[in-house]
C-alpha cells in the first residue's frame, strides 16, 4: 500500500468508526466500562450498553446497531440465547429482518472448543477469549466491519455458516484449551 492509499484508508476508517453504532452487552460493570472507554478511544461515538441478553435484545431493536459485542454467559439471558434471538428476527411479512444479519462478536472468558462451537452454532460471527487487549479488540472490530457478510439460510437457520471453523482469538496461547 502506498503512503497516499494508507492515508486514505485511515481517514476512511476514522469516518467509519465515527458513524458506527455498537451495542455492548456485558454483565461485568468493570468490563463494560473498559470496553466503552476503549471503543471511544478508537473514535466510536455511538455506543449502547446492556447488562444481559434480555435487555440487550430490547436495546437492539431500538438502537439498530451495526455491530454487537456480547459476553457469553449472563443471566437471565445469555449472549448465546440473545444471538439466536437476533438471527431469528423476522419482518412483519415473515421474511428475515435485515437487522438479523448484523455481525456479532462474542467476548468470553471461555476458550474451550465446546463453548466456541456453541457460539458458532448459535450464529456468532467472531469470538474473542478474554482478557481483551487493545490490539485484539481493534483488529477484530475492524475485521468485523470490513469483511463481507456471508449468510447461510435453511428452513431452520439463518446466519453465519455453522459448518465453518470459528477461531477463538486470544492474546494468549490457547493450546491447552484446544485439545
Amino acid at each position, binding site marked *: 500500500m502506498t503512503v497516499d492509499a494508507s492515508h486514505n484508508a485511515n481517514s476512511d476508517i476514522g*469516518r467509519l468508526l465515527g458513524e458506527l453504532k455498537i451495542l455492548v452487552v456485558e454483565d461485568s460493570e468493570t468490563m463494560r466500562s*473498559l470496553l466503552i472507554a*476503549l471503543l471511544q478511544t*478508537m473514535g466510536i461515538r455511538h455506543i449502547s450498553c446492556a447488562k444481559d441478553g434480555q435487555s440487550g435484545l430490547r436495546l437492539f431493536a431500538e438502537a439498530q446497531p*451495526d455491530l454487537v459485542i456480547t459476553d457469553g454467559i449472563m443471566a437471565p439471558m445469555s449472549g448465546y440465547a440473545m444471538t439466536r434471538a437476533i438471527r431469528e428476527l423476522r419482518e412483519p411479512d415473515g421474511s428475515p429482518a435485515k437487522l438479523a444479519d448484523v455481525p456479532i462478536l462474542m467476548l468470553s472468558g471461555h476458550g474451550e472448543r465446546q463453548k466456541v462451537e456453541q457460539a458458532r452454532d448459535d450464529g456468532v460471527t467472531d469470538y474473542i477469549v478474554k*482478557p481483551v487487549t487493545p490490539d485484539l479488540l481493534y483488529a477484530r472490530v475492524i475485521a468485523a466491519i470490513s469483511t*463481507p457478510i456471508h449468510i*447461510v439460510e435453511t428452513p431452520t437457520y439463518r446466519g453465519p455458516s455453522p459448518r465453518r471453523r470459528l477461531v477463538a482469538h486470544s492474546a494468549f496461547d490457547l493450546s491447552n484449551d484446544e485439545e
Partner: protein
Amino acid sequence: MSNPSNSHIPQDRNSSVTVPARFVRLPSIAEQKLGTAYVAPVRLDPRALEQMQQTIKSLSSEYAVKLASQIRELLHMINDVCHPAGELRGKFYDSIHDMRGLAGTFGHPIVGQFANSLCRYMEDASHLNATILRFHVEAMRDAIEDKMPDKRLADETLRSLERLILNAKNENFVVGRESLSG
C-alpha cells in the same frame, strides 16, 4: 446487493438428511456505509493503539486497588463457600470470573491464569475443596504482591494447582473438610 446461490447443507448437524441451503453474500458494514470504494486498512493505526494503551494505563491503578480488595474479600469467604449451607458460592464465582476476564488486560496475566483455573474447577465441582480455593486465592495474592516475579514459578504453581484439582476429582480428595467441620 445479495448474491444468493443454492447448495445443500445438513438441516440438523446430527442428521444425514440434507435440505437446500441458500448462500447470501452481503456487503460489509464498511461498504454499506462508505460505498464499494472502501479499502480495509492493511495495518492498524498505531496512534489509535497507543491511545488505547494509554486508556488502559489510566484505569490500571484503580483496578489494582479493586483487585487487591477482591482478593482479601475472597480469602474471608472461602469457609462459607465450601460449607454445604454456605450462601456465597455465586458471589465468590462472579468475583473470580471477573478477574479471569480483566486481570490480564490490566497487566496481571498470572492472576488471570489462576482465576481461570479456579473458575474451571468451580464450574465442574459440586462440592468445593477449601484447600484448592485457598491455594488459588493465595497464589493470586502473591502474584499481585510481586512474590511471583518469575513466570516459571507462576507456571509451576499453576501446574501444582491443576494436579491438586485432578487429585480431588479422581480420588474424591477431601483435604480441608476436617478444618471446616472443626
